């Protein structure tokens, strides 16, 4: 029996298994891993004192189960596939609610953003909660505050000499004391922007 061709067969068999284990990866990425493993086999083979069935199988065993290698590659694949859609998510969450300030439509964009956010594998649960709760509607609450009817106060005083002065005040529109209104304004602006930056951080490798 020709040992050299038996080795080649064992290696071909291994690479075919690896190829099929990597099946879900894009071809370019699959081929790159296959090329490098093939080179690795070549390097290892050149170092063998004796090339026979057992030394070749030991070499392939050190390289590992095709499924193990594919698993290492596959976790990343999932992230990459949805990466393009993920890029939209922070912006949808920030801006997607705003049209509902002008038109009495639901903040469809924001709702879509939340859906994509929760479907994504890029973010962890804590990120998803931040994305959803800080703040619902994104910049919508800020914009609503910006375009709200201006609050007004009107006061009437009744009274005269000897009579206690009584003042009646009525408010119309949404009144906010500057001490509340200004911080609120800032929070409604900063919180959604914070969420945008938070979600756009570099994802931790999964």
């Amino acid at each position, binding site marked *: 029996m020709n040992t050299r061709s038996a080795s080649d067969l064992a290696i071909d068999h291994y690479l075919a298994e690896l190829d099929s284990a990597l099946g879900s990866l894009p071809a370019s990425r699959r081929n790159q891993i296959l090329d490098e493993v093939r080179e690795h086999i070549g*390097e290892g083979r050149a170092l063998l004192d004796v090339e026979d069935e057992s030394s070749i199988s030991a070499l392939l065993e050190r390289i590992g189960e095709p499924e193990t290698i594919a698993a290492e590659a596959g976790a990343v694949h999932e992230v990459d596939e949805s990466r393009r859609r993920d890029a939209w998510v922070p912006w949808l969450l920030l801006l997607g609610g705003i049209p509902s300030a002008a038109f009495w439509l639901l903040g469809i964009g924001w709702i879509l953003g939340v859906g994509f956010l929760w479907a994504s594998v890029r973010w962890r649960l804590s990120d998803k909660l931040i994305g959803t709760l800080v703040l619902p509607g994104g910049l919508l609450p800020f914009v609503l505050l910006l375009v709200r009817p201006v609050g007004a106060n009107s006061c009437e005083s009744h009274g005269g000499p000897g009579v206690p002065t009584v003042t009646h005040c009525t408010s119309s529109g949404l009144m906010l004391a500057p001490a509340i209104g200004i911080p609120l304004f800032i929070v409604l602006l900063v919180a959604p922007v914070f969420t945008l930056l938070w979600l756009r951080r570099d994802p931790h490798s999964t």
Partner: protein
Amino acid sequence: MRCMVPSNDPAWLAQLRRGSVEHCVLALLRQGERYGFDLARTLADTGGLIASEGTIYPLLARLRRNGLVETTWRESVEGPPRRYYRLTEDGALALSDFIHEWKRFQVAVNSILEQDSAA
């Protein structure tokens, strides 16, 4: 401290590996460029860092996509040309961040573990 429950493939160990092995690869490249086989053998021989030699290739591909390493082909004396990996500037930065954080992490974990064994 001895672990009372033997387990073959604990999830925490896989996570610990996963979080650190990429930076170990970066650290191996600090002294200069190396080729895949060499990196794989070194990591596998160090023990426990990679599941098997072949798993380094998806890992290297990931580092390359993230711009932390780059490759060049070099002629080799004894065989076909080799694909050499080297650190990029971003890779060197990522590594020094990791070293900094790792030291803090290690100190924190040790301080808790030592507290525990003293009690």
